[in-house]
């Protein structure tokens, strides 16, 4: 019951936060250089036409008035329409959000599976060859551009070896996607019993997941390493050694005590990937949120940008909530 009350309280704090974010983004997008009406009008429309367009887009009204109209719509679940695709923003987001979520979730799981153990080894045996290699890798992966890495993987595993399908999105063009239920192709094709689509979607996921996954191994490894190191230097670890606990036990203590900060950094990375996977999405033609918002930024498609930020904020808030809950599980000192 305490948990339910806590969750309720936390969810209530989301509301003012979201309204604040909506307001800030609303103002910020309007400060972006460039005018959406001019973009929308194309190369052959001049003064009057653009003014008329501005009017029909509602951009001639004072900004506070525009804001309240928008806020009213959002509260009714209407995120507006894209000026450029004329589609409801919500419809676009519902298709694209699961695409990105599927990609980044698998990627972060991959990164965790590799980065956390590497970080632990590097922290425990800082002088072993293995940990030197992994530290070197962490440095290397942290400094390469994800899109470049993606292109390299495409070149090796698609162009040269042809082990993986072409980087043209989530499925081959000739494969009919399963009925959208969750939006996660892997799950939807399982639900539909469509093995073809399942195998194909997994094959398409492989390289982008590898790209994002390997890139994010670096920060995860470094964070694991540094929080492990910090814990290893703490008094209670020293005392555990003074009491003759085995290396294994000491490592278990260290890991146990670093977990909260590792989980936090995982949450931060995961949250930032929603929009931060854009270059990888571009390389693999993923059609996810990152690409969507890039397009929206280029076009100054205000509602689309605002819609994206809203989704991203909600997503991050939930991640942070989740992280906090996990924190509570791991750390008995924190109370609801």
């Amino acid at each position, binding site marked *: 019951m305490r948990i339910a009350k806590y969750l309720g309280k936390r969810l209530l704090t989301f509301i003012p936060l979201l309204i604040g974010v909506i307001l800030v983004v609303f103002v910020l997008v309007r400060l972006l250089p460039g005018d959406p009406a001019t973009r929308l009008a194309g190369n052959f429309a001049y003064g009057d036409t653009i003014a008329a367009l501005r009017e029909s887009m509602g951009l001639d009204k004072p900004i506070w008035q525009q804001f309240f109209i928008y806020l009213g719509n959002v509260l009714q679940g209407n995120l507006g329409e894209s000026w450029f695709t004329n589609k409801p923003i919500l419809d676009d987001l519902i298709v694209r959000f699961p695409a990105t979520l599927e990609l980044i979730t698998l990627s972060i799981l991959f990164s965790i599976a590799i980065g956390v153990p590497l970080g632990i080894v590097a922290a425990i045996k800082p002088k072993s060859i293995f940990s030197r290699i992994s530290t070197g890798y962490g440095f290397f992966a942290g400094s390469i551009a994800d899109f470049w890495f993606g292109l390299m993987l495409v070149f090796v595993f698609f162009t040269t070896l042809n082990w993986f399908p072409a980087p043209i999105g989530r499925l081959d063009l000739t494969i009919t996607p399963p009925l959208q239920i969750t939006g996660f192709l892997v799950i939807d094709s399982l639900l539909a019993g469509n093995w073809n689509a399942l195998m194909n979607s997994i094959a398409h996921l492989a390289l982008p997941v590898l790209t994002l996954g390997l890139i994010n191994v670096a920060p995860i490894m470094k964070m694991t390493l540094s929080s492990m190191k910090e814990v290893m230097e703490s*008094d209670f670890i020293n*005392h*555990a050694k*003074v*009491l*003759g606990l085995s290396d294994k036990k000491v490592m278990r*203590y260290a890991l*146990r*005590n670093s977990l909260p900060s590792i989980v936090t950094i995982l949450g931060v990375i995961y949250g930032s990937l929603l929009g931060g996977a854009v270059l990888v999405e571009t390389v693999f033609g993923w059609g996810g949120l990152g690409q969507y918002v890039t397009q929206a930024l280029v076009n100054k498609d205000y509602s689309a940008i605002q819609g994206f930020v809203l989704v991203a904020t909600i997503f991050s808030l939930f991640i942070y909530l989740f992280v906090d809950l996990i924190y509570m599980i791991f750390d008995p000192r924190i109370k609801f």
Partner: protein
Amino acid sequence: MIGLKTLLQIQDLHTYFYLRKGISKVVNGLQLSVREGELLGVVGESGSGKTVTAMSVVNRVRMPGKVVKGKVIYQGQDLLKLSEEELRKYRGKEIGLIAANARGNLNPLVKVGNQIANVYLAHNKVNKKEAWEKAVEMLRMVGMNDALRRAEAYPHEMSGGMAQRVMIALALVNSPNLLIADDATNGLDVTVQSQIMDLILDIVNKQGASGILITHDLGVVAQCCSEIAIMYCGQIVEKGPVTAFFDEPKHPYSRNLLNSLPERRITQERIELKGSLSSPLSLPTGCVYQTRCPYVMDVCRKVEPSMLHVDDNYNVKCHLYQEKTENRGSANEKLA
């Protein structure tokens, strides 16, 4: 009760900290021995190197510190020559260490019962359940009423005194032959202090172990210990039976210590004397006490005094007694 066999012998111990500012010679040339069944009180100002010495005994001086020279012979075995794995057999098993600051030295995320059980498991071939039962038994032994419930608690759920009792349980769970209590009552209020002290003494007496009691409380030493050692700047400057010491302290520093407290009791956290310790970063050549000694002579500034045998089991490290050993009587006149 006191056997003749030496249990622990520290010879010419040097422990340095390699700092950016220079080499900090925290322990330099320390000589000390503890016989079987003996309870030795070690007294010194804060910063004189007591804790570092205790850590050097179990060979767990932390970076950037390092034992650079000397021997720590425990039952004929030089502990400084052992590997970590071999040392583990001594730590927590042969030598139990109670540290001050229980809060920092207990793992905040593990139940205290488990922490004790882990130390027991590390040195005994028992299963988890047996270890847990042992832990509960230890908690009972250190005077906890509802030990079963306490075992389930986390350190932050306990008072300082309770946590300190857990520290004692941790040190004693494997019935060590040598117990080192380093400022074990530091930071606790007076009644709790004496309870804890009584507890330690009680257990040591029952188990027939030897003990090193590092403390500020000369009264405790007078009451409980058979031997006393006075520490100054990483050296033992005077050592002898308690009765002889309190009858007539020999070293000018010891006299200063006793004189500064009319009731011959030091209950504060720190012993406050006029002047200050020489910085271990720049120790003077000759006697380390020369900067504060009212009887300083030319020779004190040039030659380091050696540990002089002035009586049965009584040693002083002071040039004044150089003469005395050669020409008894004159020194006492001077000191009077």
